């Protein structure tokens, strides 16, 4: 009985409170309850309204899906642009780095390339670059860096090219001492390649080359442009078998660890065989002559 009385009391009280509340709110219009209610319900209402608005605008599920697909395509396009932007930015930085080369030699047509692979099986530190025939690169194009000659393009595919460095015994570059004009052939040697050095061979017995002299290309043969820095003379020595003298040359950059290069795709005098400035050396290697260049790079 007591429980029933208690329940009746609660029900009556609730009823009265609600009636009073209704009466008060009806009379005042806006009050604390309506404020609380609206604050709580606003986000839900907004969502519902947005959904209803879409409904009202008559957009079906298919339309929303197509819009979603369009937005996805737009995102992909923007992402692609961002990637392109990064590539262009990187290339721009490299071009800025090598701007001096282009400034000093306006006749050079160059392609800046990154080294993407160094084959562990290559004894003379050859590498692969990320530019190929698509970028106007042909076999035997000279490869340089800011500080001088690196080597030449020995193999070309559409998107990549292999570069053989001056450290290889296959290299035969007409070069001369800038000060004394003693000329010879810059070529790799197994004795010095581990130290990142190569030699200037076939020099005259009465040469005046000294340690510290700068060696540059002669340009004879039309494969390499004249005046490209090859390196600095670090030592003068004699061949133990035939006592012919040679000079050991160290390039200004370590060819074993460079990360980007410039390929000269065209220059004034390319393929033109000229007279040697001195009489000691008359040509570059036979293999890198004009005929070879023309036959290999027919796509250019």
């Amino acid at each position, binding site marked *: 009985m007591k429980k029933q009385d208690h329940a009746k009391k609660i029900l009556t009280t609730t009823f009265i409170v609600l009636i009073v509340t209704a009466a008060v709110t009806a009379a005042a219009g806006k009050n604390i309850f309506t404020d609380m209610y609206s604050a709580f319900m606003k986000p839900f209402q907004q969502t519902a309204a947005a959904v209803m608005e879409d409904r009202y605008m008559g957009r079906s599920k298919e339309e929303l899906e197509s819009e979603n697909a369009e937005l996805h395509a737009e995102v992909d396009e923007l992402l692609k642009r961002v990637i392109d932007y990064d590539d262009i930015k990187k290339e721009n930085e490299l071009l800025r780095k090598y701007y001096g080369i282009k400034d000093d030699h306006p006749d050079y047509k160059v392609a800046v390339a990154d080294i993407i692979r160094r084959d562990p099986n290559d*004894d003379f530190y050859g590498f692969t670059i990320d530019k190929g025939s698509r970028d106007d690169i042909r076999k035997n194009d000279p490869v340089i860096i800011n500080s001088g000659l690196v080597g030449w393009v020995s193999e070309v595919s559409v998107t990549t090219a292999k570069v053989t460095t001056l450290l290889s015994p296959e290299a035969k570059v007409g070069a001369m001492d800038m000060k004394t004009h003693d000329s010879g052939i810059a070529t790799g040697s197994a004795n010095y390649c581990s130290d990142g050095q190569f030699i200037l061979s076939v020099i005259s017995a009465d040469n005046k080359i000294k340690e510290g002299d700068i060696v540059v290309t002669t340009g004879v043969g039309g494969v390499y442009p004249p005046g490209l820095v090859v390196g600095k003379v670090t030592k003068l020595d004699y061949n133990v078998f035939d006592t012919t003298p040679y000079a050991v040359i160290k390039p200004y950059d370590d060819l*074993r660890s460079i990360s980007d290069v410039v390929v000269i795709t065209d220059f004034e005098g390319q393929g033109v065989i000229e007279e040697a400035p001195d009489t000691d050396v008359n040509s570059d290697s036979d293999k890198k002559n004009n005929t070879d260049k023309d036959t290999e790079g027919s796509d250019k």
Partner: protein
Amino acid sequence: MTGKYYRRVLYIAELALLFLIEGTPNLLPAFYTVKPLLLVPLAVSAAAFETPYFSLFFGVLCGLIIDSASGGVMGFTSIIIGFICYYESEWNKKYLKNNIYFVLLYCAAAAVCVVGLKFFVFCFIRQYDGADVLLREHYLMRLLYTWACTPIIYVVTLMVSRSFTKEKRRIKVKKRKHVPHSQRSSASRRRAKRNPL
């Protein structure tokens, strides 16, 4: 696809990964200015867990990749690695125990053949000036570095191999366990008596 195919796909993935690692400039530390040939120990390690024909195929594939990357004669390295892998797999099946010591032995043989023959053909016959320096400072160091990488590659390949063979063994053991002795046929009881494992 069964575990065997997944395992082989993973070998190919491992091959691609190691090829990238060995060629990426300034990634692997140089040992006396040389870098290792990681695909040789990979081919030899995979052959320790595979059938002779797959070993031959995988060895030839690794060799072809080495040849094409170095711009040498195609098939030069692949013939050597292919044959060594084939015989390794065949002998492992018949005579020898499959463990890391034998893999190290096979890898040494493969590396000596690959590096030695390259030296002979490309340096000795061409009579490079200073071929002895090249042998000492490049070829021997490359051989040692390649061989030294074998245990790591063997362990990775072993993990790849085991990840798809363990499951099968466990299921087989479980199946045997759940057959009560009383329910076995007389023939299977006799078989179990003869071969308790």
